[in-house]
């Protein structure tokens, strides 16, 4: 116990430069006496870090190294330089892929926000039991196999599918609409998948709004519409923003749904990357596209984190 007191006396900010001291880092270090002060100091600074090693090793070997390797290929193959990036922006077919990616991402975000908002709102409005049922539906659709849901849309939207047949039977259309293997299919299928990712954060934001604020608004003479647009909606903004941003980021990187429901005309970046690798063995161009996608994703995610300052690790430090 004496050692522990001693170690506690060491100022936490002092430099730890004991050679090889990190190897001694262990969770149980505080029970040992302190024959070498510096080693213990390092041990204290790195207490428990040893437990990180297995996962860190795994991740470095199978995730980080391949990822860095991939990014390097973008500037090394076929010849060193920025040729791949030049191609990506100069070639009109490739530029179109970029445009498609953003257009679909934006459209999907907009639609899932429009559909997610009323759902999240009603979940906060109705009695708890009903709200729980609605939330279960949202969670069910979120956790149901992605491929199963995409297959379902493929069947539903096809020319002889239920939707076309119903619309024709009702006399709304007299020829089947082309809703699959084109932009419409991608947007329907992806918006469907993204709605839960809007509803969950938005509902959390709405549930945290103090009803008294809205009451105050109406007491002060705001009409319901004014109250909605000038009080309620601004208070929902954090949820709308983080949900929307998350969905936008996820949409940019989605592969399965666009690949199955989309057509050759509206390829997006992820499909483009796979195509370059599998069909054309053009690793350089694929890697450049991948680097671009990662850069956009991380930049947007950084903005997302800025909007949500809470980190699960930071809040655990106080013990």
């Amino acid at each position, binding site marked *: 116990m004496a050692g522990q007191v001693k170690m506690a006396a060491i100022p936490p900010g002092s430099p730890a430069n004991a050679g090889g001291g990190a190897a001694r880092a262990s969770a149980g270090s505080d029970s040992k006496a302190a024959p070498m002060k510096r080693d213990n100091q390092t041990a204290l600074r790195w207490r428990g870090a040893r437990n990180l090693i297995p996962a860190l090793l795994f991740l470095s070997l199978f995730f980080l190294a391949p*990822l860095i390797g991939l990014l390097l290929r973008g500037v090394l193959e076929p010849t060193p330089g920025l040729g791949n990036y030049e191609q990506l922006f100069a070639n009109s077919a490739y530029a179109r892929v970029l445009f498609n990616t953003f257009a679909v991402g934006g459209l999907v975000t907009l639609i899932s926000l429009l559909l997610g908002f009323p759902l999240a709102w009603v979940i906060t409005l109705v009695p708890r039991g009903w709200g729980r049922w609605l939330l279960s539906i949202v969670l*069910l659709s979120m956790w149901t196999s992605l491929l199963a849901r995409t297959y*379902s849309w493929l069947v*539903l939207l096809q020319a002889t599918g239920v939707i076309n047949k119903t619309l024709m039977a009702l006399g709304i259309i007299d020829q089947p609409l082309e809703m699959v293997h084109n932009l419409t299919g991608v947007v329907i299928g992806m918006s469907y998948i993204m709605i839960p990712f809007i509803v969950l954060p938005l509902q959390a934001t709405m549930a945290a*709004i103090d009803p008294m604020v809205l009451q105050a608004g109406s007491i002060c003479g705001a009409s*319901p519409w004014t109250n909605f647009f000038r009080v309620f909606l601004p208070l929902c903004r954090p949820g709308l923003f983080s949900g929307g941003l998350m969905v936008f980021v996820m949409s940019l990187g989605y592969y399965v749904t666009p690949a*199955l429901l989309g057509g050759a005309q509206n390829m997006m970046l992820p499909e483009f990357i*796979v195509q370059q690798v599998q069909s054309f063995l053009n690793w350089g161009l694929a890697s450049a596209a991948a680097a671009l996608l990662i850069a956009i994703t991380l930049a947007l995610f950084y903005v997302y984190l800025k909007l949500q300052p809470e980190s699960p*690790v930071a809040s655990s430090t106080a013990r």
Partner: protein
Amino acid sequence: MLLSPNAMGLRLRIGLYLTTGAIAAFLLLPILFIVLLSFGSSQWLVFPPPGWTLKWYGQFFSNADWMDAALASLKVAVLTTVCAVALGLPTAFALVRGKFPGREFFYALFTLPMIVPLVIIAVAVYALFLKLGYTGTLFSFVVSHVIVALPFTIISIINSLKLFDQSIEDAAVICGASRLQAVMKVTFPAIRPGMMAGALFAFLVSWDEVVLSVMMASPTLQTLPVKMWTTLRQDLTPVIAVASTLLIGLSVLVMLIAAVLRRRNPASA
């Protein structure tokens, strides 16, 4: 006031509820539809089906290709779960209990696979295994799945570990238990719901994984989603509806288990 349904005005309220009902139906529609279709008798996926049958299930279960794929899926998912928990457990301990610089950074690092688009992870890992000559092996499947399952496991174990009061473990040590005994007999039972939730997430992520699996697959080894994927590109046979229903069924089952766990320990999942 607009936020209380009673004061909202009848027409607005009905409008809002109808819209929500339609959106909820929209969320449920494809799921119910596919389950019903898997029992429908029409080869051409006509709805409503002319009759009900189990013949597509028969075809699924008597076809060696589909059965092999389902079995491979199960094997990969179980191995992924075991590895993800084995790697995630010490990591969560380090991130919650450890006192070392850069924990924020490490946390971000371990959740990075959740953020980087799957396609990019798939292509990168594929390139690695191509070089090593491991494509199409069980090893490549499990490794790639663990990469994306690990963040889920780590997060749910972190959550339950943060809820656990370490002074209880310390009390056990003071009462004479070794640290290892205390962790095994006191801490692990207490955080079991979080570990279970982490394991379930890992299982589900692996069970449903398409993108990585399609890149890793070989003619001799493919998981259920891969088999579905390749079949889908040829035709829309109702057998895929059967496979989908099985995927949905297992997801629902796992979700129910998670819900039960959550009820027992409200903040663990």
